[in-house]
């Protein structure tokens, strides 16, 4: 046992003596987890508000109130611009649309709802009709809400009624109809005069166009944070780096003669290979441990079942130790083993979901992923971290990992022995 530990410790010291190894085995996976975690967490937030430019050419009290109301809407990101700049931004795609508030918009209800001379325009790319319709709805809602508040202003209401009286008398309405409207306006005027200032609440109140909402939380069985996806991926990258590095170290020992010197020593070849495997496994465990610790302490990444996570980690590491042994026999020089090893591991990573999460892959790639141990490694780790696998559910990926590891380890040892004798 002491010899085994000495072999593993020696390999670890040789590994950390090379700063390049340190980066690829320990630093790169952490960068990967952080970078992609941040990217995916941005995706989780969903689309933010629509970017719109507002051109207020009216500059009335009402138009400013209207713009302020639009700015308070979370569905919109409003930027106040002049007409030229607003149109340029729409052309360049910086803004989804420009809202033009033309002079006269704040002159009262008649001006606001005059279909012949609209005071509110939306300038946008015709290809973005859906966003346009969405924006029209938001503008109409804002218009009614601002109007609702205006109705609370008695003076403004009286002004409006004076305007309407003048319009009715000049319109070509039948006399009987005019009399009916005028009686209605007089009654409303009397009402506004008699009403106590402290108790008057005009307008539409808070209920105008409001739709009551009922919170129904969708059942969500996915990861609670994007780091729950990227940390297993990063762990796999760390393990892949370890496997590739140790595979190259085996062939380096063969070419340098140190492997031969070890074989001459009073230990069996099985001891030597076990020592190599132990060193690789311990380094992988260290990578996983550091990433887990960093994930827990810094990013509060929750781990559903710590015990199952340990099981998943052990099986994944065992699998890649076996692969490492096989990769070390893929060539006779460090260059050939390094090249072939990384090529093989990168293909496994690509199809296994270490580069792009499996859920984003087309179905044919997802079918191919079954042949990659990376997929099973990630599945096992995710099963323990956020998929809430039971012990029985965990057995399938773990069994696949152990089987692949054992097969490649045996193949690697046989080929290595053949190369020696």
């Amino acid at each position, binding site marked *: 046992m*002491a*010899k085994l530990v*000495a*072999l593993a410790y*020696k390999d670890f*010291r*040789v590994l950390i*003596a*090379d700063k390049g190894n340190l980066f690829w085995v320990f630093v790169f996976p952490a960068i990967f987890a952080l970078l992609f975690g941040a990217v995916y967490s941005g995706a989780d937030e969903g689309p933010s508000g629509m970017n719109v430019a507002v051109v207020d050419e009216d500059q009335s009290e009402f138009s400013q109130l209207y713009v302020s109301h639009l700015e308070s809407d979370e569905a919109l990101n409003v930027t106040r611009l002049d007409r030229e700049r607003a149109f340029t931004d729409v052309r360049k795609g910086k803004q989804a649309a420009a809202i033009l508030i033309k002079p006269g918009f704040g002159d009262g209800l008649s001006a606001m709802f005059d279909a012949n001379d609209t005071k509110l325009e939306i300038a946008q790319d015709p290809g973005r009709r859906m966003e346009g319709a969405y924006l029209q709805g938001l503008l109409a809602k804002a218009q009614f809400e601002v109007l609702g508040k205006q109705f609370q202003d008695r003076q403004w209401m009286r002004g409006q009624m004076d305007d309407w009286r003048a319009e009715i008398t000049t319109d070509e309405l039948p006399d009987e109809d005019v009399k009916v409207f005028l009686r209605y306006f007089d009654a409303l005027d009397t009402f506004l005069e008699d009403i106590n200032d402290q108790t008057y609440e005009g307008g539409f109140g808070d209920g105008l166009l409001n739709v009551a909402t009922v919170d129904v939380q969708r059942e969500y069985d996915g990861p609670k944070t994007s780091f729950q996806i990227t940390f297993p991926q990063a762990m796999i990258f760390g393990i892949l780096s370890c496997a590739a590095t140790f595979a190259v170290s085996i062939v380096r020992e063969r070419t*340098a*003669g*140190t492997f*031969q*010197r*070890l*074989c*001459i*020593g*009073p*230990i*069996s070849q099985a001891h030597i290979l076990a020592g190599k495997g132990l060193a690789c496994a311990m380094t992988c465990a260290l990578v996983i441990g550091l990433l887990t610790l960093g994930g827990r302490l810094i990013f509060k990444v929750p781990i559903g079942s710590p015990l199952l996570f340990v099981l998943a980690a052990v099986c994944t590491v065992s699998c890649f130790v076996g692969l490492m042994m096989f990769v070390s026999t893929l060539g006779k020089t460090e260059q050939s083993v390094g090249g072939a090893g990384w090529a093989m591991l990168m293909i496994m990573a690509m199809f296994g979901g270490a580069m792009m999460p499996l859920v984003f892959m087309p179905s044919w790639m997802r079918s191919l992923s079954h042949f990659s141990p990376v997929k099973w490694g990630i599945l096992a780790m995710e099963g323990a971290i956020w998929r809430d696998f039971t012990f029985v559910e965990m057995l399938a990926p773990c069994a696949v990992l152990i089987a692949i590891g054992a097969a490649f380890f045996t193949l690697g040892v046989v080929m290595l022995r053949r190369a*020696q*004798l």
Partner: protein
Amino acid sequence: MIEVANLCKRFNGTVAVDDVSFEVPQGTTFGLLGPNGAGKTTTINILCGLLRPDNGTVSLAGQTDPTRPSVRASLGVVPQSLALYEELTAQGNLEFFGCINGLAGRRLKERVAACLEMGGLTQRRKDRVATFSGGMKRRLNLVCSLLHEPRILLLDEPTVGVDPQSRNLIFDSIEKLKREGHTIIYTTHYMEEAQRLCDRVAILDRGKMLALDTVENLIAQHGGPSRIEAELETPPDNPDELAGQIKGQEFSVEQNTVRFATTEPMQSLAGLNQSGLRFRALKVETANLEDVFLNLTGRRLRD
């Protein structure tokens, strides 16, 4: 101590070792002398169990299976390549190989210190091997095999590519090991090394063992005559009479220089002295193992 009988090894149809047999008594140094590709390293690899022979047997201190850990524990092998971890320090390498050879604790510390001293590396023990000169690496390569004090040493060209100072240090170390009674097999293609260090030498070429004996006997049997060149104060008056006195062959006189070959250089020099001639300079070139190899194969060792 070491017995090798009818050893044969082929690689893809190429004969590397062809019916080689020899014995190395305990406490002696045995040389395997031959050019590159003679089969020296293959023989060493079979002796330490790295290669299986196609035919023949090997016995190390009565044990016929060199792959057994107990047999390997009594073996110290210095490989031809620099089998060291360049990323580790000299001390780190020695400590690691010491552990592998079963040393631990105080004993390991003592042996590491002794080996660093023997290799002249105590001052540089904390430095990474990658920073060492070729000679220092060679010395470390040697002492890494001596940590566990093996009784049998197999040294495969331990001085390849080293500076004269390091070579002398290595020779001193090997001579010390000889005095301590180690049994040593030493492969080389430098005949001076074989002549200096080995009690008996086997000459190998293309897998075959051409001759085996002490260095003196090999030279006497296969080295040819010694060559003597004497520069005289004055040319000899009667060259024919002089040729008769010295009993030499290929006698020639050129102005005041006399040249001849002889199988008995001491008697010839005595005859030359008795002739009454006065010498300005005398040069004696005795035959060496290079001549032995040349006479046996028609080629030079480093061809």
